[in-house]
């Protein structure tokens, strides 16, 4: 039997106790601090979510074909409710030889091309039958075939459009796997003023590192 180890002195035991108590108090204090302020990532200013209108995939105009498909109100296309058959409305011009759009059609703003030669109703509408279009070479086309009417003058763009290269395409690039949707010219271009209007751009990127800077600017932007 080994001899009993020498008991540590009374004073060193007391010192050990004091050290243990000190460490315990330290941990307790740390626990209290951490429980009072739970770990959270630094708060950042909120970047507002983008307006869902910028995520919209539908065309901004509807073609006659779309309206007919949706069985929507087509009364705007019933020309002979107001016009007389066999008596096409004459074109009137001002002193600059610019077409005067009658008040009944005041929603139409003519702006087809940079010169005025294309801003005449019967360049596209059929003088003999207002319910159809007529191309320059005398072919009669239905309202639903408006893209072919555009193509009768805008050949290269029409060729690109047929190849899927001009204009918007939606759906499947792989035509075997799903539907490929091609829009009509008038889904994007207003035929009376085909240039695509300017628009408000979606918000610019926020500087990644400084989202905080953007908070005070937001109310200023909305006041005017």
């Amino acid at each position: 039997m080994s001899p009993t180890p020498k008991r540590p002195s009374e004073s060193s035991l007391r010192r050990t106790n004091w050290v243990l108590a000190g460490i315990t108090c330290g941990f307790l204090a740390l626990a209290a601090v951490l429980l009072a302020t739970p770990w959270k990532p630094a708060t950042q200013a909120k970047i507002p979510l983008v307006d869902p209108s910028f995520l919209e995939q539908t065309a901004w105009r509807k073609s006659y074909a779309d309206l007919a498909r949706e069985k929507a109100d087509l009364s705007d296309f019933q020309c002979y409710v107001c016009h007389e058959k066999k008596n096409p409305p004459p074109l009137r011009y001002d002193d600059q030889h610019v077409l005067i759009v009658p008040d009944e059609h005041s929603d139409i703003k003519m702006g087809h091309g940079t010169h005025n030669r294309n801003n005449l109703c019967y360049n596209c509408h059929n003088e003999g039958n207002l319910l159809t279009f007529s191309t320059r070479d005398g072919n009669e086309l239905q309202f639903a075939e408006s893209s072919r009417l555009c193509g009768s003058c805008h050949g290269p763009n029409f060729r690109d459009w047929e190849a899927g290269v001009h204009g918007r395409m939606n759906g499947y690039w792989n035509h075997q796997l799903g539907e490929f949707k091609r829009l009509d010219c008038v889904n994007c271009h207003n035929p009376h003023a085909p240039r695509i209007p300017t628009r408000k751009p979606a918000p610019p990127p926020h500087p990644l590192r400084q989202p905080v800077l953007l908070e005070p600017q937001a109310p200023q932007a909305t006041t005017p």
Partner: protein
Amino acid sequence: MGRRNFLRSSAAFAGLGALAASLSPLREIGDYSSVDEFMQKYYKEMTPDDMSKVIKRIENEVQRQYGIRPHVRDLKPMDGVEFVYCLNLTRCIGCRKCVHACVAENNQSRNPEIQYIRVLKLPHGSMDIEKADHLYNPEAVPQKGFFYMPVQCQQCHNPPCVKVCPVHATWQEKDGITVIDYDWCIGCRYCEAACPYWARRFNFTKPEIPKERLNPNMAYLGNRPRKQGVMEKCHFCIQRTRVGRYPACLEVCPVGARKFGNILDPDSEVSYILREKRIFIQLKEEMGTNPRFFYYFEK
């Protein structure tokens, strides 16, 4: 029990409790990774069995975090398909709809903001990127005298980002898409530094995606939610294009400036463009990256 023993044991208990409390921030580590994720194999070495387990784990994780059951798939490249993107600079009006459609489709962090597409505004008659402005915010676009050039991952034939990755967490697939395995990325950001197009983004914090805007149609190498400390970038919407659909940025473009397709198919739109249109720019051509992203103008 003696007084001394009582004091000692109660002090020991209090000490242990305090220790546990002081380590409490470690509980949050569960948000970053799980044991399964830690033990996960390299993407290219996973068997279909391993992959289905990983997908289940990701689906559970997303459901736990966002309360939405996602549909995660591991989509492989199609045979006989190589993707090319063409962008018509004559048509682009700089409306930035593509930027935000991409964010919505690909579950990018909204705060801090991560965007794959940057639209540069350049003065007419110049291709000098130094003159570009990407923070423009006028009342209406397009502005007179400027054109707009959206820049995103160019899906290079010779990608510098892949070369520098020390852990092979990013690689080029056979359909031309350079992908990232977010579970393999160590976040060293070498690829971000190597990319001449600033196409790669880093998640400095945990990405924040509002629940109501989470896109549940996900792909493993695509738009599944990322975590803090990994890189991400445009992947031509893998979750859409590998099932035959157009990418989100293309579908939302109001002017049809963006064209996408299979360059190996002579009847595709991109083949037509490369055959018929005249002027092409591969951005920073002199870098030798040979992008699969072409900019062109109308004749």
